[in-house]
């Protein structure tokens, strides 16, 4: 049984995007990504105002095992970052798809969302990797 939320879009590099319907989108890393990384100890977030292009590395998540780049799945300006993560990166381990979001972007091109995977597509990719 997959617990991949069906209301989100996914990048092959294990980020999720939620279309907030107001021209912005929220970005985080998937439950699978946090599980692979293990206990997170540090998150480096982008700055509000940064202009991101889809595919840019824009954040770093560091665990006891590794430090990994986060790539923005969509283009646009960063309008908010999840500052709670600076003090408590473990929120991502506890709730990757919810409270563990990384940043919000004002979408430059909402059509980019259509190019991303849906939940079954992401699950199929994970199944292939496994």
């Amino acid at each position: 049984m997959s617990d991949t939320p069906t209301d989100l879009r996914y990048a092959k590099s294990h980020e999720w995007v939620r279309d907030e319907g107001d021209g912005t989108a929220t970005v985080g890393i998937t439950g699978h990504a946090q599980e692979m990384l293990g206990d997170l100890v540090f998150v480096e977030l982008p700055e509000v105002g940064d202009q991101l292009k889809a595919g840019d590395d824009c954040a770093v998540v560091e665990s006891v095992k590794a430090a990994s780049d986060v790539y923005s799945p969509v283009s646009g300006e960063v309008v908010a970052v999840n500052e709670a993560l600076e003090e408590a990166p473990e929120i991502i381990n506890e709730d990757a798809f919810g409270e563990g979001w990384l940043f919000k972007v004002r979408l430059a091109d909402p059509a980019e969302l259509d190019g991303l995977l849906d939940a079954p597509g992401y699950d199929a990719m994970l199944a292939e990797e496994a």
Partner: protein
Amino acid sequence: MPFIPHTAEDVQAMLSAIGVADLEALFDEIPKGLRCGELEGIPPGLSEMEVGRVMQARAWEDGQPLCFIGAGAYDHHIPAVVWELAGRGEFYTAYTPYQAEASQGTLQLLYEFQSMMTALTAMEVSNASLYDGASALAEAVLMAVRGNRKSKSKRVLMPRSVHPAYRRVVHTIVRNQGIELVELAFDSASGQTDLDALADHAGEDHAALVIPQPNFFGVLEPVDELTDWAHANGMLAIALVNPLAMALLQPPGEWGGAGADICCGEGQPLGAPLASGGPYFGFLCATAKLVRQMPGRIIGRTVDLDGKTGYTLTLQAREQHIRRSKATSNICTNQVLMVTAATIHMALLGAEGLERAALACHANARRLTQALCELPGVEPVFSGPVFHERVLRLPLAAGAALKSLAAHNLLGGFDLGRDYPELGDAILVCATERRSEAEIEAYRSKLERVIQAQVQTPCQLKPDW
């Protein structure tokens, strides 16, 4: 017999396994123009006895000159016990050991070193050392450009009063990353960073300001003002300090309202002999906020499963073996042997001993410059306060004067003509705690004779015949 275990057959077997005709083919990817070709001019091998003879002859060439040169490397007294202990087999390695955690003694020593450096500089964190002071400054510049996320410019303000060799090394290391070093003039009267020249850069986007203390001229900078100015203009403050001077002066962590953000420097004054220029070691300290931007190794203290204290490499996610090309630096080791000596040296002297050594240097430098400035035409170039070095102007060609002194087995100072032609015939002189009053007097009287011999003074007698 070469100490290579592979026979020609082994090599051939490995080459055929990967389908390559010969060893040369493995280097095909490197453009021909970059290959260095055959090594030429290598003389035939010598026997041990012959090598001994050559090395002895070279050692005699060094002589035992009386040294009044500082300029970044200082002739300090090193208690005999320092290298007696550092040379013990348990400590005798140049690098962070492989399987580092198996060498708990080495890691504990490095942890103590880090603790001492943070105490000396009043910074929150220290790494386990870098190669030397110049490359430590380059790493500090790279770290500031990464760490100052408000700045987008990749430009760093670099005073002209920073050691010229350091500025060249930093330029070499950072230029290919598109980082620009913007030169700041010094005040020609005080020798300090020119605050008017600095004011011209207010409001501009720079990642950091480098603040040398003391600067290359030996002069103490107005570090509080400079640190506050950097912070007010959105820059990080990089302190470049002489560690021995920190025993006496306000440490970078306490500069201005908020303290310097990064502190680096050359560790040689802490127990490393001059030894024809090295090996030395660099140190790098920072605020805790910047610890993930630090290059190099950091040792942490922790507890094992049984609750016993243990030491470990920590925050390795910054490092090359984990982050690959995104690592904070390609440095994955440290100068363990030099740091071992420095840690023993600092432990032996203690805070009070370091302060007394620093005070003795300051007093001797004062004696030296007073004695030399009694001579006609010799005068201090800058009015700013100094630690243990001072720039003096000579009434004759500086190079010629130093050459004459060297003929008397005396190294009289560093000729500033090449790097600072605007200062005229100026030399940088230094007197550490090792220089006795008799040695200072020897310098004064030799310089007096050199001046008398080389300066043509018109004859004061007016013969009436």
